[in-house]
């Protein structure tokens, strides 16, 4: 499975240009999609998930034209939208069976096995007969994950899947995703950089509908190795001073003090110490560069 996105553009009726001539190739692996809010991630994912058509460009999934052969794509698709609701008063068990039938799993034994496995896997087994509308946010999210994985999808698109999950459930979910195996294309959109680092052999950063970076997280990290410096300052004034002189990547509050990370080829000066580069630095630097251009 390979997904080829070529020259995708989309402008909404209100004038927002969500995608600007975006091209991307995604192979048989987990692919992380990073970007700030409004970057066009969801638009891109919905387009791939057959839910909307671009103004121009094409999307190919192996031999399939995603834009015209929607039904064929939907058969191999597992999709978890960023936000979704459920029918009230319908249990997870009923709903998964229903969705499994819609996904063409007509053999009852197979269907039951799959539904039960997913319920176990997403830790919803005990609550399987409860109405979905009574689920907490995290439970609902896990239900979303379960329904996306029905029918061994070849193309999995998950939009912000870990939002709303507690750390344990997040880990479990990531484990599950990574165990799904080979020959599956997974697109994972997130703004949690760690998700990508832990999971994805390849990633892309998009912002304002444009592709900023595409590659393996390790490559990106390598390119920054030795170029990230950190300094701790106490006051806002000091922080402001640093901002004007250096290329500040990010700041964190640590015990009430500002820890400032700066990008520089060599040590920027006193008080700075070299630190390990992180994927987050890659992300922020790319966004900052785009803003400058």
């Amino acid at each position, binding site marked *: 499975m390979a997904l080829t996105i070529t020259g995708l553009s989309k402008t909404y009726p209100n004038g927002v240009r969500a995608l600007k001539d975006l091209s991307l190739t995604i192979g048989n692996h987990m692919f992380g999609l990073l970007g700030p809010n409004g970057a066009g991630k969801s638009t891109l994912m919905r387009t791939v998930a057959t839910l*909307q*058509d671009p103004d121009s460009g094409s999307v190919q999934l192996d031999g399939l034209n995603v834009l015209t052969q929607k039904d064929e794509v*939907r058969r191999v698709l597992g999709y978890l939208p960023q936000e979704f609701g459920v029918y009230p*008063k319908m249990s997870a068990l009923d709903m998964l069976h229903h969705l499994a039938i819609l996904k063409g*799993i*007509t053999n009852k034994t197979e269907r039951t096995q799959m539904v039960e496995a997913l319920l176990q896997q997403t830790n919803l087994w005990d609550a399987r007969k409860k109405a979905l509308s*009574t689920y907490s946010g995290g439970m609902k999210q896990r239900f979303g994950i379960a329904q996306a994985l029905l029918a*061994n999808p070849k193309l999995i698109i998950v939009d912000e899947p870990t939002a709303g999950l507690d750390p344990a459930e997040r880990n479990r979910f990531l*484990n599950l995703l990574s*165990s799904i195996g080979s020959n599956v294309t997974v697109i994972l959109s997130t703004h949690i950089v760690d998700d990508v680092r832990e999971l994805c052999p390849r990633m892309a950063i998009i912002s304002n509908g444009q592709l900023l970076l595409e590659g393996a997280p390790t490559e990106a990290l390598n390119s920054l190795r030795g170029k990230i410096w950190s300094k701790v300052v106490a006051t806002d004034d000091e922080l402001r001073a640093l901002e004007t002189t250096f290329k500040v990547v990010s700041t964190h509050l640590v015990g009430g003090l500002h820890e400032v990370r700066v990008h520089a080829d060599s040590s920027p000066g006193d008080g700075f110490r070299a630190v390990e580069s992180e994927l987050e630095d890659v992300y922020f630097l790319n966004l900052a560069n785009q803003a400058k251009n």
Partner: protein
Amino acid sequence: MAMFWEFFTFEMKFRFKSISTYIYFLLWAVFNFLDVASENFGPIGNNNGKILLNGPYANILNDIGVTFFGLIVIAAIFGTSILRDFQRDTIQILFTKPISKFAYLGGRWAGSFVATVFAFSGLLVGEFFGTLAPWADHSRIGPNHLSWYLQPFFSIVVFQIFFMGSLFFLVSALSRKIFIVYLQGAAIFMLYIIGVNAFGATRSLEHFWSAIFDPIGLRYIDAITRYWTVVEKNSLLLSWSPHVAEGVFLLNRLFWGLIGVLALLAVWKFFPMSVEALTARSSGKRAARAREQDIVEARPRSLVAARLPIVHQIFGPGTRFAQLASLTRIRVANILHEVPFWVLLLLMMGIAINNGYFAGKLADRNVWPVTYLMLQSVEGGAQLFFYIVATLYAAELIWRERDTQFSGIHDALPISETTDWFSKLFALCFVELILLTVTMFCGILMQTLSGYYHYEIFQYVKELYFITFPQILTFALFALFIQTVVSNKFIGHGIVIGVFVITPILFNFGWENTLYLPGQTPPYIYSDMNGYGHFAAALFWSIAYWLAIMAVLAVISIALARRGSDDAWKSRLGLAKQRWLRLMPAVSVLVLIVISSGCWYYYNTHVLNEYLTAKDRRHIQANYERDFKKFENVPQPKVVAVDANINIYPERRSFDGNGRFVLQNKTPQPINQIHVTNQFQSVTNVKFDRPFHAVSSSPRNLYTIYQLDTPLGPGEKLDMKFDVGYASHGFKDGNERPEFAYSGTFFDSSYFPTIGYDNNIEIDDPRRRKEEKLPDQEILPHRGDAVGSVTNLFTPTSDWVTYHTTVSTSDSDSEGQPQIAISPGYLTREWHENGRHYFTYDMGDVKTLDFFAFLSARYDVTKEIYQGKENPISIEVYHIPQHTFDVDDMVAASKAGLTYYEKNFSPFQFKQYRIMEFPRYRTFAQSFPNTVPFSEGIGFIGRLEKPKDIDFTYFVTAHELGHQWWAHQLVGGRVEGSNMLSETLAEYSALMVMREKYGNDSMHRFLKHELDGYLRGRAGEIRKERPVVLVQNEPYVWYQKGGHVLFTLADYIGEDKVNLALRNFLLQNRYANANDAQSGAYPDTRQFVEALRAQTPPELQYYITDAFESIVLYDNKAVSATVTQTPDKKYKVTLNVQSHKVSADGNGKETPMTLNDLMDIGVFVGKKNEEKPLYLKKEKITQANQTFEIVVDQMPTRAGIDPYNKLIDRIPDDNMIDVTKQ
């Protein structure tokens, strides 16, 4: 206070910024605009041509209607004012601020109140602009009185807003759920309808308590204005005085005002200023459940992910079916899991069961709840719900995925739009089938409970599943389409309801064509004689046509179905283009069905049959009058003998044949032109036995003038021969002729040629005449009029005739059964020939009116011989096999009538009296000579549950038998008053037969209904009321009033005296002109009054003047009654009574009269309505206020003046009062 002001102004600002406020305003403005500007719109416009469209009564009625249908608007404004804070979660911000409960609740309430009053004030504006509309009927628009606008608006509408609004406010504040508020609105609406129906069906004449507890007004308006005449309706407002109509309006307003105040107090007392609602306990339970879940969650679990099993996906037709089934199941479950559906279902059952209970209780009698009546009741009640559910759930189904935000997942599933759409349709169908089935069970249940066990399941199935269901389906498809196209569910609701509401309005405006009124089907009537009969074809094709049209829209809905996240029309049309190719074949087939069914319908209704709207038909009548009225008094010969050969073809709903009239010139001049009216275009080939030629004809051959080459001399006779026939072709768009049925043909002499101008064809509704620019209709001439006096009232073209006919019908009709053909006269010969059954009827020597009929149906016959005074009389009832309920009763009534009439009036002129059933397409019984067609709609299924029940069939049978004397022996001239000579006297005769059966005491109840009927009748008079002996065309005068006053006269001067007067009158005047060669005078009411006066003592002559020759009303009232024990162990009652007497003119304008009248004064024992007289004596009443002292032997309970309501009194209930101890 400042804070109150803050909330108040906030609420006002919010409301006046909201578009909905102005929409409501506009809605009411348009509503009242049309009430005034269009005669076909409001309750008044359609009602009575003399009531001002902007008069006080119109305003009262419109205001009540508006507050009823506006409940939902009141709920929407008051109900949401508090809920808004909860819905938008501003409550957390608000309640953490230091605000007082009074300011918060008061401000919100007051703001809502003002906004609602503003919205409803659209009524006033709309009405005002309506009076300016140039096309409106300005003869019915008076000057605009401010008080006529404002008094009803404030005392009805604003008041209603106050207490209803407060109730909604209370419920919404305490429950904090909009759903409950709307539920409350719907429940009040439904329960009110149930209540009013239930009350109406009890036929109670109670008007006090029911009016006070009425929250809407339909009962109190009835209690207060039911007898208002035109003058009163155009001048009186609902008075707040405690003295008007027993203070009903004041008490009603006080009661409901108090309810409103209590609601406000309750809200202030119980409203918790906290996030938790009063119903917090159940949410506490929910929280506990959630905690439990969290505990389960916390159990330790391995972090290692297990491998998911491998599954196989199969996509093919089988899967498509499985998908459809699963989707449908889920969608049905979604609906069934929600409370609103069950609430709707329960309300529907409530109404259906309630209506079902009254299925056998028609307006004035009890009948067996046969299946068509039961269906009419339960389905009639449930129908609205079928459409509400279709409207609501079409929207829910279309929008469900978006509303629940499930569309992200749903739309990316590998299902086709068609599968998805069909699952929505099937879910809707499933739910509707539940409703239909429940309706059926309600009907069967109610039949069982009322003791009717003849279940006709097949009829239920036909009606509900094969006629109603396709119509709902049509509507549902339309609603699904609209919801697909519009961008918002509520706009969709608006359009769907709009189309539903506008269709009947368009129909009223003359847009009657089934082919362009969405979802329209032509009207049909089920009959036990005939099933769905000839209506089936038109019904089938109209349903097929509309179903196919809506199916085309359905395919378009599939093409346009929203899928994915892009709702822009550009992308939807793009998707539609992609889907269109697959949908094309279906569309082609459907369009083909639309075209072919539409063409077939058009061919039948416009080509095979002439298509005429109601207005077209009136136009034809009007043209007839315009063109030929001038010939009305041209002397014409009279029909003196009728001979006809008629062949009825029931399976074709047709007949043909020929006839022969013998005409005689009964005028002193020669006649050289014969004029023939041919109302139904059924007459052809007219020939006379001497040379003649046609001078002129008219469109539709309505009127032809023939010139005789040699004039017909005075006294000379002429033979006229003609062919006659009518053939039904295909089906019509409604307006099927009721005369022709597969079983139950019944047509009369109007299908034969009418000699001269026929004024029965004239339009008699003054509004319609105005529309056609015709002058006021000429009323019957005065008594003694030169032409009118010598003309027969009923058959102006004839005096009396001899009658002979041969009529045949099929031996094997549409169901392969033999039929019996009947016409007046004695059966003299009967034979079979060529698969037909021939009957020859002959009247012998007895002369009859030129008024005959032909019937044919599959009959059972019940015969009994009654020994009459001069001959044995054969009493025969022709009925269908399953209608045996009333047969014995009809025979008994006939015997009782014959006995009474032969004894008191004169011998019966015939040797047979036959009653025959005909289909309920028309509901009357009509007396032809010795032959009475009686509709299955008013007889044959009668039922008596309690011995006290009024036996309507018995009454009608006796009434129609009475006409064998009062019409078929004695007929008046064509002058004012003559109608009472047949109708009043037949009514009186029947009342007397009833009295023989029930005794005097039960007659009180019966007479009270007669009185009520008269008073309501005069309140609805569209022309002018006339006194009994001058009656023109006022049935309530010639039936109810006439019967009542003559019955009272019999009480005052004695039954024998009245009967003697009638007998003398009859014997002197019967068969006028029967044997004369020249038409002389017919009797009129002058001779009748003379005959009455001759038997009436001088001191009661005034009663004849008052009751028969004038319009006189009494207002009698018992003011007080006290009792003391006398020393000799007797009881002395002191009774104070009031009495007023007025005379009224034709419009109801009253002038006081002086009293010098005899009235019953009575003292009774027993409780109300079961009084037994201890003392009853007629006393002379001369004072407005008089006191009587009466000594009786027993302790009395009730006393009063005119206790039996023998006199006409608009408040009959206050004539008696409880006796109190002193």
